């Protein structure tokens, strides 16, 4: 079976040739099988977000290839890759258009990656569908379809962003520390929601987190990044048996190996 995602020898340097030059991805390799739910941990500057943004096409990579399914997307601009990807960002404000209503935001998501024409943006049938989907979030939003998103709390917005990212099933779901800006209780709820949606729809997912316990408790696979590379990759039984202690040990160990680099600060 074709893997869901192949990242092959990808390198990325920001601001090359300047004083702020930053060599972030140093030939990273990653293959995801269909239905993999991968949690990603690593210190600040390890390249986690850069990896996700490289896959999403926020910027072009310097070297290497990226395939989603059997399609090479290495040179596609961000908006053309969107058809394959669902994305949720760390900042709850980024994923939704604040001045537009819940229904309008969802309708934009419903047609992710499609050509936008002069047809009506939202049909009555879609409205009913949105209501049903919002009810599943269990946040009481199903009767607020025509409310402007800006009126909602960060947690509600993040839940809606998650719904928007998955309402049209993506080939790959990218979650960039999507619970980091929420209070612990809301974060827990959004994580639970994430698990439900991902497992129910069997969506191939990459989730960055800075919380080792979350990284262990969620998903079927865990990778640790350090200094622009994948340094640890476990799956299945082995992952289930992980403890925070063993992870910390791995962390320290990979740090020691790259101790010469002073860019690494433990997150």
């Amino acid at each position, binding site marked *: 079976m074709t893997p869901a995602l192949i990242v092959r020898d990808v390198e990325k340097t920001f601001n090359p040739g300047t004083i702020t030059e930053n060599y972030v991805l140093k030939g990273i390799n990653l293959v995801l099988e269909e239905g993999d739910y991968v949690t990603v941990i690593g210190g600040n500057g390890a390249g986690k977000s850069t990896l996700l943004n490289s896959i*999403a096409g926020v910027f072009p990579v310097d070297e290497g290839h990226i395939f989603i399914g059997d399609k090479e997307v290495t040179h596609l601009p*961000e*908006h*053309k890759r*969107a*058809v394959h*990807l669902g*994305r949720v*960002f760390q900042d709850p404000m*980024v*994923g*939704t*258009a*604040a*001045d*537009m209503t819940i229904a*309008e*935001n969802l*309708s*934009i*998501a419903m*047609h*992710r*990656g*499609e050509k*936008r*024409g*002069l*047809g*009506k*943006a939202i049909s009555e049938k879609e409205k009913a569908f949105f209501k049903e989907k919002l009810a599943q979030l269990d946040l009481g939003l199903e009767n607020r379809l025509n409310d*402007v998103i800006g009126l909602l709390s960060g947690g509600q917005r993040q839940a809606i962003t998650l719904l*928007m990212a998955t309402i049209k099933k993506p080939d790959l779901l990218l979650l960039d520390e999507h619970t980091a800006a929420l209070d612990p209780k809301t974060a827990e709820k959004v994580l639970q929601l994430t698990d439900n949606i991902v497992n129910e729809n069997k969506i191939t997912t990459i989730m960055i987190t800075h919380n080792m316990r979350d990284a262990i408790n969620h998903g079927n696979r865990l990778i640790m990044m350090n200094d622009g590379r994948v340094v640890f990759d476990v799956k299945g039984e082995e992952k289930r048996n992980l403890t925070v202690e063993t992870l910390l040990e791995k962390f320290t160990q990979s740090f020691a190996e790259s101790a010469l680099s002073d860019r690494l600060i433990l997150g």
Partner: protein
Amino acid sequence: MLNIITGAISLGLLWSVTALGVYITFRMLDYADMTVDGSIVTGAAIVAVLLTKGANPFTATFIACIGGMAAGVVTGILHTKLKIPAILSGILTQIGLYSVNIKIMGKANINLLKVDTLFDIIPGGKNTVLIGGGIAAMALVLLLNSFLATSLGSALRATGNNEKMANAMGINTDTMKILGLALGNGLVAFSGALIAQSQQYADMGMGQGSIVIGLASVIIGEVLYHRTSIIGKLTAVVVGAVSYRIIIALVIDMGMDPLDLKLFTAITVVIALSMPRIKGYAMAKIKSFRKHHIKATIKIREKEGTAI
């Protein structure tokens, strides 16, 4: 007096078309588009030249719109493809248009006294500008309202509201910006063509400050007629444009030197734009006054032994 007001309303309706164009770029796309000062003249210039050559006023006005749209596309390309900052892109197109407009007209101004304009061929007698302007404004409000409710309109609004989200949803934000600027400047040129036909001349200098007049109209509309629905917001723009003209007519009638108008407009826009801050400051003052007042009252009451 009645004549002055009718005249102001008529002119306001013609200018409301410019204001609607500014609304699209400024509020929907979040883009302060300086092209406007040039594209409004482009509209006037094209319509004037075509009318003097005997073209049908409807055809001439339509072609004027296309000219304005082209100007918007240029600004859009400068900004999205060549990555020139938004304001500068508009200014560059505006400066370039100065030469282009003179080329179109062949001279600094053209009078249309001897040719039939739109306002000569539609019925309405003395009030033909009022009627024509009213129809144009109303039709555009309805048209824009339906456009903004389409998938494309929705994508345009998302681009202005949250570009990162729009991109992540597969919307080509560059194309949307170019489209929005074309739409906005098409409307502005339409307005320029209408104004030239109503005053029966086109002039190189007529565009100066029109972006500010457009902004003033948008903001005055939002203050006077605050609505949350799209159609309400579009109507507010027309209300703002007409109110602006009435205000101007009144202050001139009261004896203000017309040369001071631009300063007056600039100050109006500054006050309107800074309203949220002024309001916030005033609210904070009132709050702190109340707090002190309550504290002082409690103290006095304690002294008097009347504390509750």
